[in-house]
């Protein structure tokens, strides 16, 4: 078995490494975070980049086809790419990742052929390179053989392809291990992982609970599920108990979300550090006291430091979809709070703040 699949190095070894190499975890934002505003045209690309930069989050990640209209079917004009570089330079930012979506179900009733899938990935590699990205993000549903077939091309273009490891998957899930084995067998350094911190959910997110109650889950059942999650009860028990409590549709759906977190140990990233190059700082809710109540960022940052992680943590606000039925999300304020939390955890001396208004 190959090096990065071995059990983790000891703490002792880790600490020695930390002394030898200076650790520098960087802050960034995935513009996914501002989707509620950009969807409605309330924030422009420049607003997104300026806001992130003002918070000291200089790494910019995008979902290519969210930020650039036309991609991939209609292509993107060079002037739009030029504008991107102009904005990145203006705000002293760094392009981090183009998150792509391989639409292998493009043709109704038949899956896209293998070679066309590889060509599609190469197209996204080209686009990532045009944008000056270091990484392109792949979804985990993609056949690892497709990524392996595109790895040399990525290497030539200076791009790494990163599989997003996202709940309900985790680093011990057989499907992820299959990817890891394929990556090791390929011998390529152009293949890696992008863990989404949502997989380390250690409490039931309050915004999930409130949404489930709005769509009809009785409070007693919602309280029970929240408590059962905290007590780490096996999901199958919780689902059956909820049914016995008289829970129907939305209550069962709420209980079934527990199936999505079968493992939540941040330390499991340590085995894979050599292939982890970017991190999604997923969050559902940042409270006024700069705490994400359901994702253990203190422990996450501790583990990343231990593993000598040198890349970005990009804010990825996903509370929007859980609250939008009841209130307009304030994505910028949510991102600001997470950036304050991250800066503190990273030991930065200056607190991030917004000195300019969001819309220019």
């Amino acid at each position, binding site marked *: 078995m190959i090096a990065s699949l071995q059990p983790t190095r000891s703490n002792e070894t880790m600490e020695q490494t930390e002394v030898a190499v200076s650790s520098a975890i960087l802050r960034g934002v995935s513009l996914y975070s501002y989707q509620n505003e*950009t969807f409605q045209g309330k924030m422009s690309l420049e607003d997104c980049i300026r806001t992130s930069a003002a918070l000291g989050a200089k790494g910019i990640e995008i979902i290519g086809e969210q930020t650039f209209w036309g991609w991939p079917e209609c292509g993107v004009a060079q002037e739009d790419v030029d504008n991107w570089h102009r904005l990145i330079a203006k705000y002293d930012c760094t392009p981090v990742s183009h998150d792509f*979506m391989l639409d292998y179900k*493009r*043709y109704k009733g038949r899956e896209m052929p293998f070679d066309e899938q590889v060509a599609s990935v190469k197209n996204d590699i080209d686009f990532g390179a045009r944008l000056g990205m270091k990484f392109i993000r792949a979804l985990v549903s993609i056949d690892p053989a497709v990524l392996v077939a595109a790895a040399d091309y990525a290497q030539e273009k200076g791009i790494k392809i990163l599989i997003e490891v996202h709940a309900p998957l985790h680093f011990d899930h057989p499907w992820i291990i299959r990817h890891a084995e394929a990556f090791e067998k390929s011998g390529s350094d152009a293949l890696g992982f992008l863990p989404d911190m949502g997989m380390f959910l250690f409490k039931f997110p309050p915004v999930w609970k409130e949404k489930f109650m709005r769509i009809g889950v009785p409070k007693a059942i919602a309280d029970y599920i929240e408590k059962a999650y905290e007590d780490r009860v096996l999901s199958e028990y919780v689902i059956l108990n909820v049914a016995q409590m008289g829970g129907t549709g939305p209550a069962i759906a709420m209980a079934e979300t527990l199936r999505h977190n079968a493992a939540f140990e941040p330390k499991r990233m340590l085995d894979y550090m050599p292939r982890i190059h970017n991190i999604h700082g997923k969050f559902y809710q940042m409270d006024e006291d700069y705490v994400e109540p359901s994702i253990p960022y203190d422990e996450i940052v501790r583990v990343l430091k231990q593993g000598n992680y040198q890349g970005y943590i990009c804010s990825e606000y996903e509370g929007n979809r859980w609250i*939008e039925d009841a209130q307009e999300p304030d994505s910028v304020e949510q991102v600001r709070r997470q950036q304050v939390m991250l800066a503190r955890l990273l030991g930065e001396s200056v607190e991030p703040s917004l000195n300019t208004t969001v819309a220019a």
Partner: protein
Amino acid sequence: MMDNKMIVEGSLQREDGGFSFLGRLPYYRGLGLSMIEDIIVSVDGEAIPREAIRFCVRGRTYTLDKMETVYDNRWNFGEKARIIALNGGLPAGNHAITFAVRMRVSYLPFVPTTKDTKQLAMAA
């Protein structure tokens, strides 16, 4: 997501042989048109037949059947498409418009349908 932003407020207008409104894809990205499996429209509780619906973006208009094999155009993130219903027309006043989209998302093992309903006014 974006369910309640699918129908653009104040966008109801007359068309030759029917009416139209502006609709947005309930998604955090866009989609190639071949992946739009269905667009369902009803007005005041009455369903418009699929054949009577047209989809129009950036000056190009498609039937829903045609869209299924369109590989060179997209419905972009947040983009306002004009959804045309050829139902013979609509009187002035308020109307309850329901708009649903069924989309084929590669990474999902099922085909989700998302729906929005709004009261829109047709000018006199």
